[in-house]
């Protein structure tokens, strides 16, 4: 097995998901494919040689040499403002990946999967949903998204249009859309659901406080801690 190398990826397309989040479509000539849930490391270099490195989850299903990342701009961040506001189609960025084998889902699996996203923690979980749809997997999958308000929600149209066999709970914690039946508030035990199938694997991704709170709720609901996989962003990542 070859060691991973830093490689040049070109930005071939870009779109804003929200005013503060942008998806970059990258072409990575040496890409060998990935599992949904994995991430890439991005390294930027300034003219004076200063470098900064961050990790970003892959948002897309495997698709040849194309890889999408969705970057949430962090106030006073160092790397994310550049990726959200500055980098342009045609530019090159340095990248290493895919990496991270633990927080990943293999679409050949048939066991049920519960995905729980806090804010931009939806990115790697969306890659899992997209991969399931792309390969025609019939693994039962449920998606619970917690986000502050509709204008901060990633992929809102796509999540709303998922087929009926992918049940979705959208929990707006501060401000619900007008006409919504669900009042604004945190994800509830009922929305996460009791563990009914011991084979179910749960993926939880988001800010550290969110992940710890959800993991505790899942154990309360009877989920096997060995079947809960977590990815924490920290207090916020720049």
């Amino acid at each position, binding site marked *: 097995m070859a060691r991973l190398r830093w490689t040049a990826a070109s930005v071939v397309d870009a779109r804003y998901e929200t005013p503060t989040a942008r998806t970059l479509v990258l072409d990575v000539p040496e890409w060998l494919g990935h599992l949904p849930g994995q991430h890439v490391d991005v390294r930027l270099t300034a003219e004076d040689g200063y470098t900064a490195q961050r990790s970003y989850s892959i948002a897309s299903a495997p698709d040849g040499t194309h890889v999408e990342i969705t970057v949430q701009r962090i106030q006073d961040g160092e790397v994310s403002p550049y990726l959200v506001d500055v980098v342009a189609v045609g530019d090159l960025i340095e990248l290493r990946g895919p*990496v991270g084998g*633990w927080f990943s889902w293999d679409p050949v699996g048939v066991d049920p999967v519960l995905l729980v996203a806090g804010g931009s923690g939806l990115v790697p979980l969306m890659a899992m949903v997209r991969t399931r749809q792309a390969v025609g997997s019939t693994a039962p999958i449920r998606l619970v998204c917690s986000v502050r308000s509709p204008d901060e929600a990633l992929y809102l149209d796509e999540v709303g249009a998922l087929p009926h066999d992918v049940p979705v709970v959208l929990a707006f914690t501060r401000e619900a859309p007008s006409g919504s039946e669900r009042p604004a508030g945190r994800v509830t035990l009922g929305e996460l659901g009791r563990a009914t199938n011991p084979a179910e694997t749960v993926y939880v991704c988001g*800010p550290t406080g969110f992940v*710890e709170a959800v993991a505790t709720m899942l154990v309360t609901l009877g989920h096997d801690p060995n079947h809960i996989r977590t990815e*924490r962003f920290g207090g916020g990542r720049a």
Partner: protein
Amino acid sequence: MSDMSYTDGNLLAGPLSDLFTVDLTIATTTCAGCGKVDRVAALHVYVVGEGYVARCPGCGDAVLRFLRTPTQVVLDLRGTFSLRVPVADDTA
């Protein structure tokens, strides 16, 4: 209020790939402080510049530390009794 500034061992996948061709984040460690067994991916990680400190979620001891300097990569494992790495069975 408890401190939620840490991230986790998933973040080590890239840095550890400087040293290893297998993905060490799926390995399990046994904490030398309290004996708790965890995936590297589940350790609580504090990032300080080019340094990563991975702590036991149970007792908080530093299980694994990683530092990249301009001239070397340092991996300090004094906080773990053992590191178990799953491999494919190639004897079958």
